């Protein structure tokens, strides 16, 4: 198969794909129109399971299997980063030096850190009620911890951030999601089916069956994953340097 044949095949495939895409676009409902076949069904299903936030119902109930895939992607990406950014044999660790920080900036960091942790956990816990969920809240909580690096220095952050524990937490949270899915199989329905728990009262913390639990698992997974990811980047940028003369 020479170059020309390959090019022709790519062109033919691309033309077919383009034709299909154009055909699909021509048949799409108008922008901002009031006909939403999928949306109506999703809202109906989510209300039937008393989940106030339809997006949470789609993510963690109707398409919880997709979310499992997304979680696995994040898990694998962080794993890859940990392997790629490890300390190699010709590198050494230099102790991070203390940093001068203006007092108002330090006070701000110390005051906002707990508030941001609280907000992150609030976003996770109310994922089935209001905008937000495990991913958003987990990122907010993990970012909050790094205020300690911004408002003080890397040594202060290292004192309250044992990376090993966060790696374990990441794996545990990912397993918790799987176990919650398997619990559905053991209960006699399907993998990740939302039939285990009572659906609760609409618009309260317990509503939505397994949605809040899956949200919590994702929240922990994302928070730990972001902490581990940033730990590798910070190690490389602040601590690890190459041996002199190599």
């Amino acid at each position: 198969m020479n170059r020309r044949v390959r090019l022709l095949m790519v062109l033919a495939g691309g033309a077919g794909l383009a034709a299909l895409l154009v055909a699909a676009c021509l048949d799409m409902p108008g922008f901002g129109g009031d006909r939403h076949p999928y949306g109506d069904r999703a809202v109906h299903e989510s209300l039937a399971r008393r989940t106030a936030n339809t997006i949470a119902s789609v993510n963690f109930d109707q398409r919880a299997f997709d979310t499992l895939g997304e979680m696995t992607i994040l898990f694998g990406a962080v794993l890859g980063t940990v392997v790629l950014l490890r300390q190699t044999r010709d590198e050494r660790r230099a102790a991070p030096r203390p940093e001068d920080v203006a007092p108002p900036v330090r006070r701000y960091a110390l005051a906002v850190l707990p508030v941001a942790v609280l907000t992150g956990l609030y976003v996770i816990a109310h994922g089935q009620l209001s905008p937000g969920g495990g991913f958003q809240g987990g990122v907010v909580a993990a970012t909050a911890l790094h205020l300690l690096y911004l408002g003080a220095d890397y040594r202060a952050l290292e004192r309250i951030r044992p990376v090993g524990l966060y790696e374990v937490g990441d794996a545990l949270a990912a397993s918790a999601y799987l176990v919650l899915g398997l619990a559905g199989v053991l209960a006699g329905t399907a993998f990740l089916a939302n039939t285990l728990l009572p659906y609760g009262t609409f618009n309260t913390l317990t509503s939505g069956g397994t949605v809040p639990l899956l949200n919590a698992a994702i929240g922990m997974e994302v928070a730990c994953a972001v902490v581990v990811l940033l730990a590798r980047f910070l190690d490389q940028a602040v601590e690890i340097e190459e041996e002199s003369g190599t």
Partner: protein
Amino acid sequence: MNGWTTAATLTFAGGVGATVWGVATGPLRRRVVAQNLSSALACPGLLLLAQGYGRPAYVDLALVLALLGPVGTLVFARLLAEELAADPPASPWATWCAAGFAAVVVLVLCAATGPGRAMVKLLVTGALLTGGNLVASRALAGGFPGGRRG
């Protein structure tokens, strides 16, 4: 469209539009100030949208932005300390204008909401935003005198 969403649209078109221009051109000291102002102006806009759409849950967006926007500016202040020390940004005028705008928007929204927990939430968001932006602006103008070290 109602009055609230119109005000929000004007905020985005005028305020955030100006910061897009500011962050795209000029020396580094102007760009970091524009980045700080972008979150200071977008957050009141999001609050206005929440009021305009009549959805109190949308206030969470502004709350997260009020927390993380200044943190983002601190990231730039911290990791660009060496460059900024050579050419420090000084923008008390723009920063105080943005802070005043946010305060006015929050107070007007509080008056429209009426007393209650929702009003306290608005006030907390406004305090976090203005406080954070003022501290971030202070951090940009020499908040890390040691330059880049640890």
